[in-house]
């Protein structure tokens, strides 16, 4: 049986694998690749033995800064980031959950000062499998799926 790739290989860049299905678009927006000139290959709802369904993102000629890996960890705690050089995996990086996240997510509480004056600032709580975000300002705690990214 011939095994084919669901998503084509890249020469250099990164592959973010094992993203829970449904989270890839949010991660792409947080990494600002949606409107960039970088070539991005996206796989949605791919088969996965561990997750049943997963998303996958390949970004050519791009590395992630530590804070960007933190964004991935919040929305895909089990994800692996593979660094690709000459079509081969040169490094596998497991994401670590950051302690805080600033300026990229907005507090869902409509009565929070966050909505009027500034960008979001959250403290990360809970475990990697059950990430919760507590707004630094209004002190309310949210599930990760309740929190949206700031529209730029």
């Amino acid at each position, binding site marked *: 049986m011939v095994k084919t790739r669901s998503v084509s290989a890249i020469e250099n860049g990164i592959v973010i694998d094992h993203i829970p299905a449904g989270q890839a678009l949010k991660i792409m927006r947080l990494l600002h690749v949606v409107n960039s000139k970088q070539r991005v290959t996206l796989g949605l709802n791919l088969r996965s033995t561990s997750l049943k369904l997963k998303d996958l993102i390949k970004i050519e000629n791009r590395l992630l800064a530590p804070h960007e890996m933190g964004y991935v960890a919040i929305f895909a705690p089990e994800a692996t980031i593979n660094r690709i050089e000459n079509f081969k995996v040169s490094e596998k990086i497991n994401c670590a959950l950051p302690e805080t996240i600033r300026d990229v997510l907005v*507090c869902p*509480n409509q*009565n*929070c*000062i*966050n*909505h*009027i*004056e*500034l960008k979001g600032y959250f403290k990360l709580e809970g475990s990697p499998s059950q990430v919760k975000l507590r*707004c*630094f*300002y*209004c*002190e*309310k*705690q949210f599930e990760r799926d309740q929190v949206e990214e700031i529209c730029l």
Partner: protein
Amino acid sequence: MSKVLNRKDIISIRDLSLSEVNDILNFAKKIKVSPPRKYLTEKIIAHCFFEPSTRTRLSFETATLRLGGQVIGFSNIESTSVKKGEDLQDTIKTVSCYADLIIIRHPLEGSARLAAEISDKPIINAGDGANQHPTQALTDLFTLQEARGDLEGLSIALVGDLKYGRTVHSLVQLCALFNMRLFLISPALLSLPKIICDELKHKGIRFSFHSSLDEVISKIDVLYMTRLQQERFAQSEHRLFENQTILTCDKLKKIKTNLNILHPLPRGREIDKAIDETVYALYFKQVSNAICVRQAILVLLLSKS
């Protein structure tokens, strides 16, 4: 004075340790017994009230003046540049140039925390939306300690608007520090937010929900009444007034003889005025005690600088 608070601001009860709470209560007690010297001579305290207030603003002003400090500020936004569209950050940066300490009340949650983040001067949260009102909760606790002595393990019923009442949100966190048993009585739509209940659970605090005060009135040591925060209600929630608990003397037949009734005031119709004359009512003592508690906080925050 032997202690100073090892923090710049008072924003949320969540930030305070039991030891810090005890330091504030003990110092307030000293101030009440023996009026302090003019700790705040040559200090300017800004009172920035973006929302209406009677007791909090006037008690902070009284506390400041009695300590020899001077007061600047505003009691509504009509006469400020907020009306011209100035944001909170610029307002606080500006006031920080004039004052040694800023007291802020604001309708949006998190506003005091934001002020503390951008100002190098101490900030006291005098109420931020439905979030926190730490100095009121400390006043409540001080009054209760004065009446009861030991706070550990008391049974307290919190009645009314537990969803939007910021004093309740601060007070339950203080009650948790003293391992109190909480009875939560409110219409279902105005119950204590889940996030606070989860925190109580996590801390091992015993609490239960009730729809009627009659279910628990014989078991409690303290009855903390609150008004419905109609200014924070959605239009659809106004019908909740129909289910409001109203405390009248006939409800006091089965109480413990040493029950204490507290209320952060202002009240709506939830406490009949006949209750004021009973030995149980402590709410005007709370008003009076607010001065020494706020004096204590001002001194403890400013004595470092």
